[in-house]
């Protein structure tokens, strides 16, 4: 029992690693996952629009992209992008692995996000687009102002889920060999474990992940409920027919 406690919950080890976990690890995990989510949302939105196109020449490339990136193990994609691109002379981020890490997680995220956004946008009644267009809005304006905002709201829980997965998958970029200053939570803890044969640093990193992922779930669920029930009124109003899917992490 004592050995168990010492291995996983050694207070001295945790206190020793905590500063670097927070200042370097947590910061980089957040930078990688937030950038990846934003990249994923942007590319995912473009892909979602392409997936809904009637033109096969637009639709098929998006379909292939989504199928490929959803079908590969994340660790393989991260290796292909992070190790393969620079080796092949594709070096938009120079030789530092950090940019490739963001790109890789973003590319994976985009594939899932595209499908989430597509289902959200397609769940919006056709009458919304028709009403917007009947007022003289262009297709683009109607999508941007009317259809897409509603579509995104309908899939907020699913998007949060994806965000949580991105936070967790950002740990896989450790294999790109990040240098000191670029390391994210997991890599720091992993190195510490290798040096000390003590897992307390991993536990500390785990707690850091949970501190991000669990509140995110609850905050977005609360936000989602508020959007569904109207802005200012606590009183119950008819909930739209789309099912309220709760986030699971």
């Amino acid at each position, binding site marked *: 029992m004592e050995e168990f406690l010492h291995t996983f919950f050694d207070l001295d080890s945790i206190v020793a690693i905590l500063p670097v976990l927070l200042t370097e690890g947590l910061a980089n995990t957040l930078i990688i996952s937030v950038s990846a989510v934003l990249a994923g949302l942007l590319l995912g939105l473009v892909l979602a629009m392409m997936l809904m196109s009637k033109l096969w020449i637009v639709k098929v490339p998006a379909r292939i992209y989504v199928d490929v990136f959803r079908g590969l193990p994340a660790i393989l994609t991260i290796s292909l992008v992070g190790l393969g691109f620079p080796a092949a002379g594709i070096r938009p981020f120079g030789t530092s692995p950090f940019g490739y890490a963001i790109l890789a997680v973003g590319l994976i995220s985009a594939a899932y996000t595209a499908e989430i956004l597509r289902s959200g946008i397609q769940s919006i*009644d056709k*009458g*919304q687009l*028709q*009403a*917007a*267009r*009947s*007022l*003289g*809005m*262009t297709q683009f*304006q109607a999508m941007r*102002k*009317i259809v897409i*905002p*509603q579509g995104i*709201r309908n899939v907020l829980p699913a998007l949060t889920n994806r965000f949580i997965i991105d936070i967790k998958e950002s740990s896989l970029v450790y294999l790109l060999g990040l240098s000191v200053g670029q390391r994210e939570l997991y890599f720091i803890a992993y190195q510490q474990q290798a040096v000390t044969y003590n897992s307390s640093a991993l536990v500390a990193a785990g707690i850091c992940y949970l501190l991000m992922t669990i509140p995110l779930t609850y905050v977005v669920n609360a936000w989602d409920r508020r*959007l569904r029930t*109207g*802005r200012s*009124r606590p009183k119950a*109003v*008819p909930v*739209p027919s789309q099912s309220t899917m709760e986030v699971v992490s």
Partner: protein
Amino acid sequence: MSMMAQDAKIDASEHSKGIQIRDVRKSFGDTEVLKGVSLDVSLREVVCIIGPSGSGKSTLLKCINLLEQPTSGEIWVDGIELTAKSADINAARARVGMVFQHFNLFPHLSILENVTMALRVVKRLPAKKAEEIAVRQLTRLGVDTLSHLRPADCSGGQQQRVAITRALAMEPQVMLFDEATSALDPELVKGVLDEMRALALDGMTMVVVTHEMAFAREVADRVVFMDNGQIVETGPAEEVLTNPQTDRLQNFLSQVL
């Protein structure tokens, strides 16, 4: 009482006002839903379209502002051929207001924003000006007190008034109503019909798809009976409704009256 004639193409001078529909056909896949519809609506005229469900009434209305692209035929609104390749469809569409059976308000926006959205995005008015217009129109329809609510917090009748307001705020030349009262609770129907009647008295050019025969009889200058993708009878309301010439219209009237 006249059966619909297949007019020859009309020359441009006739296109100055109102709506001209010339031999419009519309197919979805292999099924032809509009089978050569021609209809003129002159300025300030109110035309009611009646007919059984599935006869193509909604499709015809949607063709008038090109929410559906006709497979063939010509549509002119206010002197502009919408079906021409060169037509600025968005500009033309802003001149045709449409009110839908299920209101189709934007649920993520407040009532006020529902009305200001197109003023800002399409007419590019500054926020303040757009709000002024919206409040004026909302007041006219008696729903200004709802400005800051969401559509879901309003009754069906209120929502439909807001939808009418939203269309009117764009200052359309023509208003299209697609069964605007069919989704309303019975006690709310009259209020919305009253607004439509007021609009007609104001001189708005209107095409109204409706099952409200009393409204058609009272307000319509002309009634058009559609069945199976064609105009079967057309004429003054009183005549068409009391003295149907075809079995199909007799049948239909015996079912709805």
